[in-house]
């Protein structure tokens, strides 16, 4: 499309670099330096979207981050499409596919527009009032319908194809915003070598100066001042300049989070680059120079396409070389719009200015209007037009009454209702706002963190003052206070008279003056909310949804606040303001997620024999952060068959398990035994070096916390093992006591979980498999009995060899330095072939230990189980003066006979494998709700016994031996017999290797 509204010979666009993109299927041209909004306006496209609720035609309202209307779906290719992009901030890039939102079938013809006709019923609180009844309609009708209507754009469904990274950084001074105040602050702060970061959300730094063609600073044009300042800053090694970077969150301790858009402005970005970079900045001092947002005026039908903010008109004309219209009416209650009008006039546009203020109240800005018609003391009562504005209806005000209407024909309106300082980040930093009546705005008051504001965000609107304030703030932040005067001419007129909704002669009931353009909230809605009793601004906000859209009310917040104050006849400070929360502007999920996806989402810890297990076709399960071999299916085997084969191999011959994930802690020091004595309920002082003991660890509450085998390596050295998932918490628990309760004990802890790989060799043939490889250890049963540890070598490398068993069979756990684990494993596996050696996984391990009646912490226990509950009261020393948990075990409740106790369950039918977690009752005919006696904690089909076995905790279980109880099944109940929680070898003979297993030759 021809760029009919492009102005010649001006602007910061690069006319040598034309680009083209598509908007709703039409090709739109522009130049590098354009935003989507400026390029569309250059081509005369003013209709850019439909409003959220009433589907009213909308055009662009602003030229920046505060845009509520022009929200686009931007498609950069598969996996690179996202909704709700503000046309005013997305840079026009060749090849973009852009479409408007919230309409069907098209932007021009939208069925949803019917909502506008029934607007009188769609008032504030419509949903709350309407969808109350009948109750049954909610799930099936109301909620689906509301959900379908809610939201603007369409969420993408393809995985994000881009990459995102995070970067942590530190600086002495962070300056947010690179307008005049921010530039001056950065210059001052960086003079003495302090580390300075200057971040600005726009593609180009300079802020308002980029659209200022009339001011001179120290004798130079504003644009030259910007260029020189940026050159100076870029030349300082201590300065980091971050453009396209939005500071969106201000957290504790001057932790400010920024999001940098690295590649969105590039048509063919280098694939090495991330799309966005999230900066986590820890700044010693912060200078906020975030500027101010212009306010719309509240009048009937102030939302027609072509009606925009006055300063936006000026920016489109000066910075983007675009005429947003040919005939422009400016409507204002302050001086700033006069400069906009003068600049529009200067490029030959037809300009009229309407000022709410009477002639007498107009200050030096009057001089800017040479050749421009001024209607002073006039109000705006409406607009004409449909998909574009065609006229502004104004009327003179005299003595409080509205005079005769007059329609000013126009194709663009520039309105200005004053300025709202962007105090978002200051407020996020928990700083207290104060209200300045003369500018009708909240400004930063008391700081809570090490920051200060400068320029328009502090309510300072005069250019020379802004620059001086910025300089002083920067110097102050750098710890070297200084002042510098800037000669800025001409002086900035700042006259202003606050106005809420403009006076009108129409029935207020019929006037729809929009305050929140994105959420379609009108002044009338605010009035209704207050009449219905919502007097707190926080309540009004939520009831009307004013300022709750994606723009967070940047253009609407103050308007609603002023209106509430006016209706309630309370001062604004008494009414208060709503809370500003991060993010300042929407942030992509990708930036927040960063690299936390795929392989870098979470550490997946793998044991030393992992790759071998992968090659063997093992299936894996997650155990805390670890990925452990679950079972090793052979071709054609399902899990059940594989586990049965693995279990049989261990019972009859020999199996290998990678047990490296067990937590291990080396407890060293002259007081090590005393420390162990206090940490565990059982005794340790008499355990001789070379011996192992089962350790059951309790927390202060007396409940089982963890368990594991402990080997005493030397009088002052214990090798403690924990469960796989329990390692970190046991270590922390021990350190906690050592550092806070018993700092007098001479003990040190070192995590050795990953130092030692552990290979469990279990089964009647275990000794024969390891014997050829072990040197320096007598493996005979007499010299190396069950529950002992020996140090020697295996395959020529050091080992802590333990004779321990979690299967009930003769077994060893070979500890070797982790990098040697694979070599040892492969040697054992190769040699063990003659015995039919079988690698087994965690599932077979669980079955084998359940057959033998060994508990697993976290399966049989759930944080409410005492040693006695699982039949381990023998582990609790009665002689020791104290240990962690002792006092709690003495509570009467811990000894009640009806506590849930560990029992075994056998299915009466001999076939039903119970469900883990299934509830247990005594009588299935009792009334509901039934009395539940306990639940199944472990359940398997035992390959050794060839029938189901289960462990369970049952109220008073040990007194119920032989009883028949009932366990829930998906179909009802099944009968079970209560037995002792050990199904195989209750005398424990097999660990001695005395039982002949089957032999695979």
């Amino acid at each position, binding site marked *: 499309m021809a760029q009919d509204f492009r102005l010649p010979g001006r602007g910061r666009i690069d006319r040598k670099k034309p680009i083209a993109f598509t908007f709703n299927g039409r090709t739109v041209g522009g130049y590098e330096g354009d935003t989507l909004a400026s390029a569309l306006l250059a081509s005369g496209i003013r209709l850019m979207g439909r409003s959220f609720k009433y589907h009213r035609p909308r055009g662009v309202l602003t030229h920046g981050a505060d845009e509520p209307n022009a929200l686009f779906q931007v498609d950069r290719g598969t996996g690179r499409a996202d909704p709700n992009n503000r046309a005013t901030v997305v840079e026009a890039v060749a090849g973009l596919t852009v479409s408007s939102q919230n309409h069907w079938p098209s932007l021009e013809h939208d069925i949803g527009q019917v909502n506008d006709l029934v607007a009188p019923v769609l008032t504030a609180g419509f949903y709350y009032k309407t969808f109350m009844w009948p109750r049954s309609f909610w799930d099936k009708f109301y909620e689906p319908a509301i959900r379908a209507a809610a939201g603007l754009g369409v969420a993408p469904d393809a995985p994000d194809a881009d*990459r995102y*990274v*995070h*970067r*942590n*950084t*530190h600086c002495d001074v962070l300056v947010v915003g690179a307008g005049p105040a921010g530039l001056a602050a950065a210059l001052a702060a960086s003079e003495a070598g302090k*580390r300075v970061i200057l971040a600005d959300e726009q593609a180009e730094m300079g802020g308002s100066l980029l659209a200022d063609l009339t001011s001179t600073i120290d004798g130079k044009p504003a644009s030259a001042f910007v260029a020189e300042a940026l050159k100076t800053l870029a030349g300082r090694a201590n300065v980091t300049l971050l453009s396209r970077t939005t500071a969106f969150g201000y957290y504790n301790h001057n932790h400010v989070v920024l999001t940098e858009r690295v590649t969105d402005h590039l048509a063919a970005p280098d694939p*090495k*680059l*991330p799309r966005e970079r999230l900066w*986590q900045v*820890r700044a010693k001092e912060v200078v906020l120079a975030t500027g101010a947002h212009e306010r719309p005026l509240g009048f009937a039908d102030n939302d027609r396409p072509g009606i925009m903010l006055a300063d936006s008109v000026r920016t489109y004309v000066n910075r983007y070389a675009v005429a947003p219209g040919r005939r422009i009416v400016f409507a204002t209650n302050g001086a700033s719009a006069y400069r906009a009008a003068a600049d529009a006039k200067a490029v030959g546009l037809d300009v009229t200015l309407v000022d709410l203020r009477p002639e007498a109240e107009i200050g030096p800005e009057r001089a800017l209007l040479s050749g421009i018609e001024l209607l002073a003391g006039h109000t705006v009562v409406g607009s004409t037009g449909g998909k574009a504005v065609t006229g502004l209806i104004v009327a003179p005000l005299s003595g409080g009454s509205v005079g005769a209407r007059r329609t000013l024909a126009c194709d663009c309106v520039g309105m200005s209702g004053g300025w709202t300082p962007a105090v978002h980040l200051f407020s996020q930093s928990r700083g207290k706002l104060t209200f300045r009546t003369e500018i009708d705005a909240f400004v930063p008051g008391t700081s809570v963190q090490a920051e200060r504001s400068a320029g328009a965000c502090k309510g300072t609107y005069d250019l020379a003052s802004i620059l001086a304030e910025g300089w002083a703030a920067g110097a102050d932040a750098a710890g070297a206070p200084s002042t510098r005067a800037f000669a800025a001419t001409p002086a900035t007129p700042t006259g202003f008279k606050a106005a809420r909704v403009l006076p009108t002669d129409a029935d207020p009931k019929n006037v729809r003056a929009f305050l929140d353009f994105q959420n379609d909230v009108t002044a009338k809605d605010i009035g209704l909310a207050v009449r219905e009793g919502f007097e707190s601004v926080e309540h009004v906000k939520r009831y009307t949804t004013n300022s709750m859209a994606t723009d967070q009310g940047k253009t609407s917040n103050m308007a609603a606040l002023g209106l509430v104050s006016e209706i309630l006849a309370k001062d604004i400070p008494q009414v208060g303001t709503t809370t500003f929360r991060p993010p300042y502007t929407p942030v992509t999920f990708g930036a927040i997620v*960063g*690299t*936390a996806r795929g*392989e*870098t989402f*979470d*550490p*997946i*810890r*793998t*044991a*030393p024999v*992992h*790759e071998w297990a992968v090659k063997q076709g093992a299936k894996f399960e997650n155990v805390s952060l*670890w990925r452990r071999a679950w079972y090793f299916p052979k071709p054609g085997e399902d899990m059940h068959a594989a586990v049965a084969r693995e279990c049989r191999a261990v019972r009859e011959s020999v199996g290998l398990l990678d047990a490296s994930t067990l937590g291990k802690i*080396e407890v*060293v*020091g*002259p007081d090590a035994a005393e420390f162990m004595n206090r940490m565990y309920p059982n005794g340790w002082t008499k355990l001789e070096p070379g011996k192992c003991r089962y350790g059951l660890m309790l927390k202060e509450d007396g409940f089982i916390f963890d368990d594991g085998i402990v080997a005493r390596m030397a009088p002052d050295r214990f090798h403690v093992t924990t469960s796989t998932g329990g390692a970190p918490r046991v270590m922390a628990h021990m350190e906690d006591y050592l550092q806070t309760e018993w700092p007098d004990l*001479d003990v*040190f802890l*070192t*995590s*050795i*979980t*990953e*130092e*030692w*790989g552990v290979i469990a060799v279990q089964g009647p043939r275990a000794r*024969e498999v390891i*014997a*050829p*490889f072990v040197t320096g250890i007598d493996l005979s049963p007499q010299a190396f009995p069950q529950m002992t540890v020996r140090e020697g070598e*295996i*395959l*020529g*490398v050091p080992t802590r060899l333990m004779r321990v068993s979690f299967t009930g069979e003769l077994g060893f756990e070979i500890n*070797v*330095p*982790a*990098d*040697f684990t*694979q*070599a*040892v494993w492969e*040697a054992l596996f190769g*040699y063990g072939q003659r015995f039919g050696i079988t690698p087994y996984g965690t599932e077979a391990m669980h079955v084998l230990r359940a057959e033998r009646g060994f508990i697993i912490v976290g399966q049989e226990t759930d944080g409410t189980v005492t040693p006695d509950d699982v039949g381990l009261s023998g582990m609790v020393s009665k002689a020791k003066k104290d240990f962690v948990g002792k006092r709690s075990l003495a509570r009467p409740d811990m000894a009640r006979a009806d506590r849930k106790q560990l029992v075994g369950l056998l299915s009466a039918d001999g076939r039903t494998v119970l469900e883990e977690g299934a509830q247990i009752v005594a009588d299935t005919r009792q009334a509901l709700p039934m009395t539940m006696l306990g639940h199944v904690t472990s359940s398997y089909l035992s390959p050794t016994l060839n029938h189901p076995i289960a462990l369970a905790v049952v109220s008073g279980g040990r007194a119920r031996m032989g009883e028949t109880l009932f366990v829930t099944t998906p179909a009802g109940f099944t009968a079970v017999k209560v037995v002792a929680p050990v199904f195989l070898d209750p005398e424990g003979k097999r660990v001695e290797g005395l039982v002949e297993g089957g032999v695979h030759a």
Partner: protein
Amino acid sequence: MPEPVAIHARRAPILAPSASGLVRVLPPADRFVLQMKAPRGAVLPASAGGFDLSGPLNTVRGTPERFAARLGPGEWLLVCPAGEGAAAGPAIASDLAGRFFSLVAVGHRNAAFLLSGTHAADILNAGIALDLSDAAFPPGSATRTLLGKAEVVVVRVGDAFRLECWRSFAPYVHAFLQEAAREFGCATSSTRGSRQGAG
């Protein structure tokens, strides 16, 4: 009688060492965690087994191959080339004889990376929140911290940064660093689970 076995187990590190790139996987090493308490009024020894223990908290003393990083008031990570630990352990213990200390071998517990070049700190700062600039973390600094979701020890011996993490976290740490290094050029290409380790 068991058959005689002549083979000797070789180290199989979780990541194969790499010789170049912004993020290098270092060959296996021997390591110890040394912990000591200074009795009230007494001073800690300045060295043991040839390791210089005199540096203040969060510093490292030694060479890139053999150093002592002080990570706590009474805690050092001692690192030396693979194979030297067998002699270093007894030497340290002998030098500290008579005082209370804990010396635990952790040579296989850790994997190590070397990051060099002008962007080394930027790459690390993708996941480390600490200030790694020359002013805040000059050569000779050492600390324990987090990289993303993994605990790491960062040691700055010379200009380069050495990163140590637990063995099983190495694939995650490596992938994280490679992802962060991508925008600065080539990354390393190490495969995990390789058996090509040092002896």
